[in-house]
């Protein structure tokens, strides 16, 4: 394996890991909030969360690119804060990935949270558990499997993204050249042996991850389903 390929793999794993962690941190409260809403208007928020599922990634990438340009408010603020350009940077990839993979984390969590009976939380409250304690001691154990599902899907989906990365990250080795872009490069330059190595590796990785997930699914069938 060439150094460029190792760089691409390392970058992909770093991007997917950081994205997954950020998604769990921000997606969990969002999913919890959505799961407890009885009014109709949060449907707007739900729709926004689900947008990346149906939008071509290039659309998302296009708008993000415009937003991250050095002459926009965001681009300028980023430059003042860090002294670097936001567009075509690793940070831009992280932001784009978080938005792009948001539904893959929020939706399974929201579905699982909705299945946690409110009654159990009321029981916990009368036993002295404050809301955060209720979440930690009742909701999280009951939905543990969905957290694993959400994290795995978020991770795998980030590994597999292409369009958004291409639009806002470009193809800078060691900075923004992730696996899917490297693979595209090989195909463009007709290096099929190298392309096979990357493509095959991704197929095996994805299959392995999904088998692990479904095996868990069969074992823990008493838990709240997602």
């Amino acid at each position: 394996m060439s150094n460029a390929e190792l760089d691409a793999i390392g970058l992909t794993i770093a991007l997917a890991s950081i994205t997954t962690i950020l998604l769990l941190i921000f997606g969990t409260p969002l999913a919890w909030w959505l799961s407890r809403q009885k009014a109709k208007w949060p449907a707007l928020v739900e729709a926004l969360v689900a947008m990346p599922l149906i939008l071509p990634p290039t659309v998302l990438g296009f708008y993000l690119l415009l937003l991250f340009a050095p002459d926009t408010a965001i681009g300028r603020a980023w430059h003042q804060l860090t002294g670097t350009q936001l567009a075509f940077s690793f940070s831009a990839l992280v932001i784009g990935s978080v938005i792009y993979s948001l539904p893959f984390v929020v939706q399974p969590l929201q579905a699982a949270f909705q299945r946690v009976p409110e009654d159990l939380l009321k029981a916990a409250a009368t036993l002295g558990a404050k809301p955060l304690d209720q979440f930690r001691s009742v909701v999280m154990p009951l939905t543990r499997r969905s957290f694993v599902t959400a994290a795995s899907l978020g991770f795998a989906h980030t590994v597999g993204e292409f369009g958004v990365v291409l639009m806002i990250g470009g193809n800078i080795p060691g900075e923004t050249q992730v696996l899917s872009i490297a693979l595209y490069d090989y195909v463009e330059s007709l290096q099929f042996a190298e392309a096979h190595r990357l493509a095959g590796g991704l197929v095996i990785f994805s299959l392995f991850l999904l088998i692990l997930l479904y095996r868990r699914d069969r074992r823990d069938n008493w838990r709240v389903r997602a």
Partner: protein
Amino acid sequence: MNDLELQLDYTGEQHFQLQVNCALPAVGVTAIYGPSGSGKSTLLDCIAGLRRPASGSTVRFRGTGWMTGSTFIPPWQRRVGYVFQDGRLFPHLTVQQNLHYAETRKKPGEGPDINQVVSWLDLAEFLPRSPTVLSAGQRQRVAIGRALLSAPQLLLLDEPLANLDHEASQQCLTYLQRLTRELQLPMLYVSHDIEEVSQLADYLVLLENGRVVDQGSLLDLCGSLDTRLSREEQAAAILLGTIGKDDPEFDLTELQVEGQTLLVAQQQHLPGQQRRLRVPARDVSVCREKPKDSSILNILPVTLREIQTEGEGGARVLLRLALGSQYLLARITRKSAAKLQLQVGDKLFAQIKSAALLMDSADHHE
């Protein structure tokens, strides 16, 4: 201020309104009795803080404001134990962990000890199991134990026996009776089953359409003609008696009530203990002369205190009969009442079918 003060105004779904303004004793067992949809569970939820009544409502327990003016103490700070109809044990925890959940969140040093609770409710064999494999009755026992381990100042029970079969509910009732003896813990017990209420409660609150229509001691309300209880088909007075001698030849036990002797089915209890006796109004008849050769064993001299016709021109009348300082109810036809020319103040004999004598094991009522 040793009571539970309630001024509640709560609007629920479909314009249901709970409007309660009363003070309940914060000792012994207070039953909240009423038909389904009368707001019993909503009332408990408001007391526990699980529902928030309109501002201006007051909930004050032994002088401590749980809801007053703009203050609203959240449920996790009220130290109220709540036993729900469906148990609500945590399915991801074992029985032991469920008990532990409550214990770790209470103030240290307060409330009963876990071993004590396990022995009161005979939970030892369930401890390592998942609550999902327990029977409904066993689950309720664990739920009661869990509520006790949170060291509550007040225990709320919302129809805890409603989902149980007869045997399991009798068994659970025995455990609850044991707890009322062992603990100085005030309880609010919601039920729509008057027999359950008769066995457990000291004080009774009648709830109808979100309003308290009557409240008073169980014995007073059950022996009165002025409440909705007397109009129910299963209306019954409750007598307090003391266990007397056994009659082993006929498998009967004597019970002393107001200087009179009743014979009831043989009891396993020791002589001298106090017991309640539930006498359904439909199983009591009256006569002017004491019958000499009746198959009915229990014939008591009583004084007629009140006559009430059921409904407008109903076929039946209810009689309130004084037996010493206690009361019996009798439901007879209006025709019989006319034939006997019954007048308030008449000295009569009440015949109680011995089959109608219900014996419970509630002996906490002094």
